[in-house]
């Protein structure tokens, strides 16, 4: 394509390697960057470099952080005997935003997925066993997604930890708050009924 700048072609090509970015989006981003005001691209490039250089997994939980330890693990008021297992750092952010959880996290960096060739060895399972032992954890809450991969990973963790005598729980599934029963799919509704709770106790 002689009419197109080779450099633009290369940038578009690099951008399409990013998750969720197709050719059209990559082109839009490219033209945005070309038209961006003075300094924007330089700052962005510097930021990307800094992020890549300074951000790394927390040595305790695997959350992404600029230091050796993430903010949660560095916080002395957190209950280290309560561990919430999540798939990705982004999931940790979600649970943390609820303000309901005072334990610590463990980021698996994925889920078991035989079809994608991801087994327990590629995830941070050994580290989890280690932490449960060293901190004498009383409960591990598994907050992986409620799909086949998330559920089988949760089951694997429960079996893995059962010799250690720690309680392993799974987050409940049910109806969204403020939602209408009308909008719930039948299976979610059925599970919400199965997991019903007594009122006024």
């Amino acid at each position, binding site marked *: 394509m002689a009419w197109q700048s080779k450099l633009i072609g290369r940038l578009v090509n690099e951008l399409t390697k990013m998750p969720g970015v197709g050719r059209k989006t990559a082109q839009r981003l490219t033209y945005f960057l070309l038209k961006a005001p003075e300094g924007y691209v330089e700052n962005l490039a510097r930021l990307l470099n800094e992020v890549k250089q300074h951000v790394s997994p927390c040595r305790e939980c695997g959350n992404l952080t600029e230091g050796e330890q993430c903010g949660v693990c560095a916080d002395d008021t957190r209950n280290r005997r309560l561990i919430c297992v999540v798939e990705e750092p982004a999931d940790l952010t979600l649970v943390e935003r609820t303000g309901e959880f005072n334990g610590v996290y463990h980021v698996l960096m994925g889920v078991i997925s*035989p079809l994608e060739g991801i087994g327990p060895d590629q995830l941070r399972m050994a580290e989890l066993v280690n932490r449960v032992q060293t901190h004498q954890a009383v409960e591990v809450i598994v907050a992986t997604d409620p799909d*086949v991969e998330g559920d*089988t990973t949760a089951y694997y963790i429960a079996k893995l930890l059962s010799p250690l005598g720690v309680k392993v729980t799974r987050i409940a599934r049910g109806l969204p708050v403020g939602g209408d029963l009308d909008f719930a799919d039948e299976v979610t509704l059925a599970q919400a009924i199965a997991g019903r709770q007594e009122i006024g106790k």
Partner: protein
Amino acid sequence: MFASQIHLKNFRNYRETTVTAPPGLILVVGPNGAGKTNLLEAVHFLALGRSFRTNRDRDLVRLGEDALSVRATVQSACGEQLFALDYGAAGKVAAVNDETIPRLIDYVGTLAVVAFGPDDLALAKGEPAVRRRFLDVWLGQESREYLYTLQRYYAVLRSRNALLARAAPRAEMEPYDHELVAAGATLTFFRAGAASGLAAAAAAAYGELAPEDEDFVVEYDPAVPCDGDEEEIGRAFERKLEEGRGAEERRRQTLVGPHRDDLRLAVKGCDARRFASEGQQRTAALSLRVAQFRLLKKTRGDPPLLLLDDVASELDAGRQRRLADVVAGAEQIFFTATTPPAGIEPDAKIRISEGQIEASG
């Protein structure tokens, strides 16, 4: 319910066309290759998100195009509803009354449909997979929980087979055994419960279609014993997995479970697949479809749309007439034929040539 208007865009040989249709029996006529079956296939695709002819959605898109769209205005007891299903680069996207349904599985079967086709002979003659598909297409429209469980079962099965293929250690297999048993027991329990209703309805339909005094027996033939409740089935499934572990490790695939289920069909006490005449097999297959239609009509409280693709040509005049009586409970029937069948008076005619609707009404 009935579809008062159907709109196709880039579906098979149709560029863009709109069909209006009254309730009743609609005869779709035209030369071979004009697109009669394609019109019925589009309605099936709109209702169930899949063709009755192929598993490759890509084949449904008109040559040289990259996206298709099927829409229909449907009149039912709930009033008028607009169903739409698009397929393209973003996969299949469904909408009801212009509101997009985020997950296809929450949409599939909202519109109920039963299709009779020339390939139905395989129901009586073919491999077990054909009868399993029959069960799934039927029960998936009876219950959305069935559909979810089916999807989950096959997702677990694919993963479990991937683990067996690379001889994964026991600890890695265990979660998949657990999930396979859970979903498999639900499916088996569901199929077992539905089978008696199917047997009665299919036997009745056979009696109406065949004047000869022949009995037709349909029996569920599950891979896992289906006596007792879901938990008992689950335990039986676990035992089967345990017994077959050695064989599974040698063959490197899951050898037991509802993906190996079948229906046993018998005419006059003999296995229909091996000993029935082709006429008997055809009547048996037709009876299963009629049963599917009547059972869906009963559970859903509204007759499904009926699609009869080139069915009449395979039947003698007597069976054609009786089939027309049998399906009289439908509110709308699309019926393709190269020549108008004897003894059937249509309420409307749609004439098609080369992907064009020439006349309807």
